[in-house]
């Protein structure tokens, strides 16, 4: 039990399990005794059943029915035993014993399982060759990013089919393999080609509209996998833009009947009347504009601070508001820390943080909601998103109605 008190991520108990080759059990038992181990053999107990106290001070317990033996840590170390086996050994394998836990909380169990799996891999394959850290392992084991999982996206039967989503940003890597076959409409408002040479736009589009099943072991990172994607380049490849260019992008998206307009951009500016008017017109025409609250840690900036534009705050994986996330006028919150998504080739995938990453989570979920009912447009869609958000124990000024949820 002292092993449990270590309080670290090592899930080994300190004991070792020796698995014997077929027919080599008695030879194995003889070898243990020859090394002066006190061996308890379950054949000596009634019904092969024993409790820990029955073992007395045995160094090892033999399980003939299973063809293996459990060796105490001290006994193992005293005889300088190792995990290596020789060709003529009665032992097939020698492995550390790991704790098994019963967990009420599925995600805790899975996290523990994953750490144990990594520990086993390191033991068997040799330590620190692996570059995987827990965050990278986690989505691969669970099949989707933490953000999609928290928004209940994998459980949704919606795909965003029939819904047009405009992402006004640095453009998109139009040749990214994960978007092959998707309907993509583009327009530039900054005098540069739509092709994303920055990465921000591709990442946001990935979250809002990425594929249901990315290739290989890549976890699912996108929400509206059947949406029609409208890429409006309103930010240059250097990441800059103007209100005029952004308004032009909004005008284009509204004119093209995009039910959802995602804007992961803004400044610390007070409310701009032009944005408020644009937001109002959009709502009346069935388009919901969703914008990032800002990363200043201060009050929400423009355009998100317009009353007609939905402002999104960022959450950490523990569902606390991210330290950088602006506050005040916030309608809803979404995952924004360490968000895995698409980036331009050749890299193809990357992890970013910001209210910029939270915003397309809301946009993607909005697309799924819009698909469920043609009346969920504009203000009705806004209200559905806030009404269905998961409540969080933080003030509305930090998280609005709470964590966005998919239908």
């Amino acid at each position, binding site marked *: 039990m002292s092993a449990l008190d270590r309080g670290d991520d090592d899930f080994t108990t300190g004991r070792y399990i020796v698995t014997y080759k077929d027919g080599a059990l008695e030879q194995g038992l003889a070898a243990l005794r020859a090394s002066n181990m006190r061996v308890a053999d379950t054949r000596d107990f009634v019904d092969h059943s024993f409790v820990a106290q029955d073992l007395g001070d045995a160094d090892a317990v033999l399980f003939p029915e299973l063809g293996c033996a459990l060796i105490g840590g001290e006994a193992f170390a005293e005889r300088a035993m190792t995990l290596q086996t020789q060709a003529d050994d009665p032992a097939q394998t020698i492995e550390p014993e790991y704790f098994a836990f019963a967990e009420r909380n599925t995600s805790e169990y899975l996290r523990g399982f994953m750490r144990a799996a990594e520990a086993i891999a390191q033991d068997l394959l040799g330590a620190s060759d692996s570059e995987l850290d827990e965050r990278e392992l986690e989505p691969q084991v669970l099949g989707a990013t933490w953000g999609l999982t928290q928004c209940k996206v994998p459980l949704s039967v919606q795909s965003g089919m029939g819904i047009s989503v405009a992402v006004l940003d640095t453009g998109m890597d139009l040749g990214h393999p994960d978007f092959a076959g998707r309907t993509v409409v583009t327009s530039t408002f900054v005098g540069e080609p739509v092709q994303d040479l920055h990465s921000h736009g591709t990442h946001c589009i990935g979250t809002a509209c990425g594929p249901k099943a990315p290739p290989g072991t890549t976890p699912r990172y996108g929400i509206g996998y059947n949406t029609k994607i409208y890429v409006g380049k309103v930010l240059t490849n250097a*990441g800059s833009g103007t209100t005029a260019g952004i308004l032009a992008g909004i005008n284009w998206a509204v004119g093209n009947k995009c039910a959802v307009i995602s804007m992961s951009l803004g400044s610390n500016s007070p409310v701009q009347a032009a944005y408020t008017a644009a937001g109002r017109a959009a709502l009346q025409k069935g388009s919901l504009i969703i914008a990032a609250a800002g990363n200043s840690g201060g009050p929400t900036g423009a355009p998100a601070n317009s009353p007609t534009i939905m402002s999104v705050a960022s959450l950490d994986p523990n569902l606390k508001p991210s330290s950088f996330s602006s506050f005040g006028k916030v309608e809803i919150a979404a995952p924004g820390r360490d968000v895995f998504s698409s980036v331009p080739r050749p890299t193809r995938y990357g992890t970013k*943080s910001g209210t910029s990453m939270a915003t397309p989570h809301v946009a993607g979920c909005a697309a799924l909601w819009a698909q469920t009912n043609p009346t969920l447009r504009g203000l009705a869609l806004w209200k559905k998103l806030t009404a269905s958000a998961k409540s969080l124990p933080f003030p509305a000024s930090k998280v609005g109605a709470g964590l966005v949820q998919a239908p």
Partner: protein
Amino acid sequence: MKRWLVTISPAHDAADVARAIAGTGVAVEQVLAEIGSVVVNAEQAQIGSVKAVVGVDAVEPDQSVDIGPPDGKIS
């Protein structure tokens, strides 16, 4: 000479108001009819006349936005 954003009242036709704005001598750059915005190029001194045009709700200077570099930590 700089860029200004003119917000048009929803009760008015943006194209009509844009023509009236142009009549004040100011250069109209874009008419964003779906969202009721007109983008103009003008000197500060001309803005009073633009504001006086019927159907103009607000005039604001254009502003810039920056999301930072591609490898920025938070964006």
